């Protein structure tokens, strides 16, 4: 015995794989797992890594304040990026009429997310970051690349699914970092909505 206590076994991480969903009785949707409910495949791992990278980079205004201001500011930046991606897809007209109503519905949700986070920041006297004005302003490399690669309907659907997958990871990380109950509850509702969005886009063929 060296006298040194052995290190404790590592606990499961905050992003520990969640349970797979129960098998559906009649699956019309693709047999995919809930994004946060399954062992992460490589693509999802890369996606969550990018989300974590985004979260690790505080905005200049919020860098010193830290805490909820920083986390909410980063959540808003991601929602602004999501809305920008939706608008790029809308401008491209690649989705076609078939998905038009769903696109308008979910784009309105994303706009509400931006407004809710901006209102929360403003209510505390915290400055909201400016939204991306052009593709080069998008901070997440794979979203920027996916916008650049908008060539057909399949690419448009992939982009929308990707931003929703990433937003789930971003908001889940935010839940662990926030302190104030009302902020946690807001982000929880955003997270739940983004999860339903991902199902909605995966159902579109």
């Amino acid at each position, binding site marked *: 015995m060296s006298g040194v206590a052995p290190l404790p076994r590592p606990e*499961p991480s905050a992003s520990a794989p969640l349970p797979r969903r129960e098998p559906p009785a009649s699956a019309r949707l693709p047999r995919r797992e809930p994004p946060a409910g399954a062992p992460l495949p490589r693509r999802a791992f890369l996606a969550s890594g990018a989300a974590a990278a985004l979260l690790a980079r505080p905005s200049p205004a919020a860098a010193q304040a830290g805490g909820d201001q920083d986390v909410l500011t980063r959540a808003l930046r991601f929602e602004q990026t999501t809305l920008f991606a939706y608008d790029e897809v809308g401008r491209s007209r690649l989705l076609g009429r078939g998905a038009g109503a769903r696109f308008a519905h979910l784009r309105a949700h994303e706009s509400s997310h931006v407004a809710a986070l901006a209102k929360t920041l403003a209510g505390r006297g915290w400055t909201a970051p400016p939204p991306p004005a052009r593709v080069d302003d998008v901070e997440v490399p794979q979203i920027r690349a996916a916008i650049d690669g908008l060539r057909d309907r399949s690419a448009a659907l992939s982009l929308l699914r990707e931003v929703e997958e990433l937003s789930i990871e971003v908001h889940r990380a935010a*839940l662990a970092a926030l*302190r104030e109950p009302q902020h946690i*509850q807001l982000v*929880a509702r955003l997270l739940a*909505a983004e999860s*339903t969005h991902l199902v909605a886009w995966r159902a579109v063929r």
Partner: protein
Amino acid sequence: MVTRRGLLAASVALLAGCGSDDAGPEERASERPGGISSLADVALLNDALALERRAGNARSAALLERLIRRARGDVHPLDPGPAPPDPVTAQDELVALYVDYLPKLSEPRLRGDVGGLLAAAAWRGAELRERAGGEPAPAALFDGARPEEVRG
């Protein structure tokens, strides 16, 4: 009417000391396993476990059991009450529960884990709505409440 769940949530919030709207951003109560806040977290997790089991979400229930043990707690789910009228409602009730309970959980890492369970419940409800020909994403700020018109 005061429900059993309402009473539990109120007592847990009191125990954890984090349920008031004017709680500041400062550190919460002790987050050590076995501490007061950890006991409160375990009570909330056991409540969620009862609903996950009732909804038939075996894997989510298994993860909750792991989380309870990680917090040095015992798995003792209470009776969740009468079964919901349909599977979509069962998932929406879980969403509502997690949205309500997340701010009351004191351990930050636990909130990340439970956030995953929230996402999974919302996912399952959306899939069921989509299959039934309804709107999978009923609200921009989804808390499990469903307007009548979006029911599948």
